[in-house]
């Protein structure tokens, strides 16, 4: 390949792809076959970190940034006056293989603007994955974007070669979508998701019967929503997210604070801040739903449509529900332990393990590494020292904020561990 041409294309097409945050490379079980190249078992490795602190684990590029659509929030939109480029299938294959061989990356994350038609574009994405798997015997990680509107047949093929498939719904509400992406229809996003979900189920049940049925998208599917572009509130966002988790068995929903890229007056203007704290609160809420046994309606509902920015959503929930506290750490069940502000699931398991041997007091808790600065107001243990004052929610919040500087205000990132 001609070096200068490729270099130019890479600059354009990596730049255009960087706003997609769903770059995790874990969750696949692809092993090295026949002494080929690569292996995607276990946790994905972060080979480097960008200067904004995000993990670099995949070569994340667009196949092309030519696009026939005009979504207002997107740098690649038709009406935007930018340089355009398109990779050839072989160029992407060469870049992936050569970066992989040098231990730069775990694999490829390939997305694309819509060139000619959805099927035409999807066909090329699939061709890259197919070539990598069949011609290069590549066993690293491949994440393909499903192009909204692509045919079922192509989606089926995509899943045979990719570890993960995703469609970005981008805009959480149908009305927002209409306003900002008039060319797009909600159904077009949903259709590939349904298809992939059904294929995964079908392949799974076939695998039970025939051992060597090929794996279909072993790392599942994910999606991304842009936050703060179309005026939606947190309640709407998390409802949509919850719906997608439940209906399409998604592995992950990603939330991406909108980075202003245009002067379109339907959108926040260039220079306005990226809503990073809000993004972090949404991730925390997502975590509470998926791992802490919360129902989304406990955190966000018609009465509480916005997440607090100054405290995390679990603390915020606890302050609204003081009647559930204090929790006795020596007797409470796992569900209630997980609801104590400041306790992560790791701490919950530490408590469950340790209390089998003895009744726990404050000293024990400290020794096994439980952070108490937030938790102390919400729990009792084998000690007669505990918070006896009848504190109001505002008072507790004040005390907590005064004694802790949030680690997120110090170093914000959506990849940090999410609870203290």
């Amino acid at each position: 390949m001609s070096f200068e041409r490729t270099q130019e294309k890479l600059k354009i097409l990596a730049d255009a792809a960087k706003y997609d945050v769903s770059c995790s490379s874990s969750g696949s079980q692809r092993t090295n076959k026949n002494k080929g190249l690569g292996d995607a078992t276990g946790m994905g490795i972060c080979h480097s970190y960008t200067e904004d602190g995000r993990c670099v684990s995949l070569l994340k590029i667009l196949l092309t940034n030519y696009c026939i659509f005009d979504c207002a929030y997107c740098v690649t939109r038709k009406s935007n006056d930018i340089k355009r480029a398109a990779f050839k299938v072989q160029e992407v294959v060469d870049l992936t293989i050569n970066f992989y061989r040098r231990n730069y990356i775990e694999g490829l994350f390939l997305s694309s603007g819509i060139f000619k038609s959805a099927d035409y574009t999807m066909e090329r994405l699939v061709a890259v994955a197919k070539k990598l798997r069949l011609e290069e015997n590549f066993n690293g990680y491949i994440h393909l974007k499903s192009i909204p509107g692509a045919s079922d047949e192509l989606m089926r093929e995509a899943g045979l070669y990719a570890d993960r498939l995703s469609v970005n719904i981008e805009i959480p509400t149908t009305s927002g979508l209409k306003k900002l992406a008039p060319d797009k229809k909600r159904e077009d996003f949903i259709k590939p998701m349904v298809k992939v979900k059904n294929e995964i189920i079908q392949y799974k049940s076939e695998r039970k019967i025939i051992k060597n049925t090929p794996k279909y998208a072993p790392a599942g599917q994910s999606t991304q929503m842009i936050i703060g572009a179309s005026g939606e509130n947190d309640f709407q966002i998390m409802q949509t997210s919850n719906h997608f988790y439940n209906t399409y068995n998604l592995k992950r929903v990603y939330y991406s604070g909108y980075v202003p890229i245009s002067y379109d007056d339907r959108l926040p203007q260039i220079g306005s801040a990226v809503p990073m704290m809000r993004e972090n609160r949404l991730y925390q809420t997502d975590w509470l739903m998926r791992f802490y046994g919360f129902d989304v309606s406990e955190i966000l509902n018609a009465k509480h449509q916005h997440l607090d920015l100054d405290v995390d959503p679990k603390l915020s929930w606890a302050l609204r529900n003081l009647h559930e506290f204090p929790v006795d750490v020596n007797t409470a069940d796992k569900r209630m332990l997980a609801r104590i502000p400041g306790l992560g699931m790791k701490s919950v398991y530490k408590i469950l393990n340790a209390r089998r041997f003895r009744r726990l007091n404050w000293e024990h808790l400290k020794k096994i590494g439980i952070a108490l600065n937030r938790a102390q107001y919400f729990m009792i243990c084998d000690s007669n020292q505990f918070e006896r004052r009848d504190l109001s929610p505002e008072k507790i919040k004040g005390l907590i904020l005064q004694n802790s500087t949030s680690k997120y205000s110090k170093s914000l990132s959506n990849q940090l561990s999410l609870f203290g």
Partner: protein
Amino acid sequence: MHNRNLIYDGTFDGFLSTVFYVFEQQIDAVTIQSESDVQHGLFSENETIITDEKKANRVWKGLKNKVSKFGHYQLYYAFLSEQAGVENLLLDFIKYVFSTDLKVDKDFSHPSVLKIAQIAKMVGREKHRMEAFVRFRLTKDVIYFASIEPDFNVLPLISKHFKRRYADQKWLIYDIKRQYGLFYDLQKVDIIAMEFPSNFDFTKTNVDYFDQQEFEFQKLWQDYFKSTNIESRKNMKLHIRHVPKRYWKYLSEKQPY
């Protein structure tokens, strides 16, 4: 009773042979030292222990039955830390293990158990870093070459990972500090020593040794690294926490363009 000074050859088998000797001779007051960092204690005599693979294996197997799998590899990890005095810490741990019928490798109230766990964790972290930060460069004789300078002796720990992943290319990972490398020849991984020209600079990619393509791919990777950053979210503090500065000199993306 005086303190005895046992000297071994620096290998793990050598260390385990020494442990065997300590138990066999029922020695109480003892210091174990690798021959490369022998210091003569004023009132001690030096005894050199000869490495005996059979004895070493007996100790290693014996330990396996007495501790969890996790505790077992922790011992090896901690040994590879090369920290001053780690041999005596390990001996203390091993004595404790053999003194009781219980599985004690998670009894963190015992000082050497806790210390070994902490050291092993640091070594584990370094292992992961090396799996991430190794940067191969293609040489003229078609070997993917990487040089590293890890804080601990982690080459033995990363061998399996790279062998599984890069099964179809020849590769060599060289530890500059400890002056040995791992070489995979498409069949097996060997431990090798190497001689470099006296003016060889590990941080530079020199046209005399490296393939023409190598320069292009390094450029492309640097470009990619720059393009994928979002300037309005820049956070150098976080960046440096993830990629500490001491590793920068071997990362292609951090080299002058």
